[in-house]
C-alpha cells in the first residue's frame, strides 16, 4: 500500500492573506495592474490629444474629478512600491564586480535611486517648464 502524498491545504484565491510576506508579494505583483491601467489612461489621453483640442479638453475634464484623483494617488503608491521592490532585487539580478571584488548590494541599490532622482528631475524640468 502506498502512502497518500501530503498535499498542503491552501485556499486557492486568498492564500496570500495568511502572512505579511505573502501580502507584500501580492502588493508587488498587483502594482502591475495599477501601472497598466495608468498607462492605458495615458494612451487614451494621447489618442484624444490627436483628435483635437475639444476632444482632449473633454478627456482632461473627465480625469480631474475625485475618482480620477483617488486613482492617481493609489497608483502613485503602487508605482513607488514597484520602484522600491525592483531596485531591491537589482544586486541579485545583476551582481557587479569591481577590481576583483563584489560591489556591495547597497551601493547598486543606491545608484539606482540616484538615477531615479536624476530621471525624475529631468522629466519634471522638460515637461514642467
Amino acid at each position: 500500500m502506498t502512502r497518500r502524498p501530503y498535499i498542503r491545504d491552501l485556499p486557492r484565491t486568498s492564500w496570500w492573506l495568511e502572512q505579511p510576506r505573502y501580502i507584500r508579494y501580492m502588493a508587488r505583483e498587483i502594482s502591475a495592474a495599477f501601472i497598466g491601467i495608468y498607462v492605458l489612461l495615458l494612451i487614451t489621453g494621447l489618442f484624444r490629444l490627436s483628435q483635437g483640442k475639444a476632444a482632449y479638453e473633454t478627456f482632461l475634464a473627465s480625469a480631474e474629478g475625485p475618482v480620477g484623483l483617488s486613482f492617481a494617488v493609489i497608483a502613485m503608491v503602487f508605482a513607488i512600491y514597484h520602484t522600491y521592490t525592483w531596485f531591491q532585487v537589482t544586486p541579485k539580478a545583476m551582481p557587479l564586480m569591481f577590481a576583483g571584488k563584489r560591489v556591495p548590494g547597497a551601493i547598486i541599490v543606491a545608484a539606482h535611486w540616484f538615477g531615479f532622482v536624476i530621471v525624475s528631475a529631468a522629466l519634471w524640468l522638460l515637461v514642467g517648464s
Partner: protein
Amino acid sequence: MARSNKPIVWGLFAAGGTVAAFIVPVLILITCLGVPLGLLSADVLSYEHLLELLQHPLSKLVTFAVLFLIIWHAAHRMRITGHDLGIRNDTLVAFVCYGVAAAGTLLMLVAVFGL
C-alpha cells in the same frame, strides 16, 4: 536543446519593469497630481503645450517605446498573477492580458501618428 521564446519575453519584461521603476512615479506626479497640488501650472497639461512637446519625431519615438515596454511588462506580470490568484485557465488569462496590451499598442500607434 529545445528552443524557447522565454528569454525574449523575459528580456522585454525586465526592460519594461526597469523603465516603469524609473519613470512611472514622476509621470503620475506630472500628469495627475502636480496641477491639483499646485506644484505645476495648469498650462503644462494644456493642449498647445503637450502638442508642442509631442510633435517632435524623437519625442513620439521615445513616448511610444517607453509606453510600449511598460504596458507589455504590466500585461505579462498580470498574466502570472492570474495564476497566483487561483485562475488556472492560463490560455484565457494570457489572451486577455496580452489582448489588452495589444489593443493599447494599436491605439497608441494611431495616436502617435495622428499627432
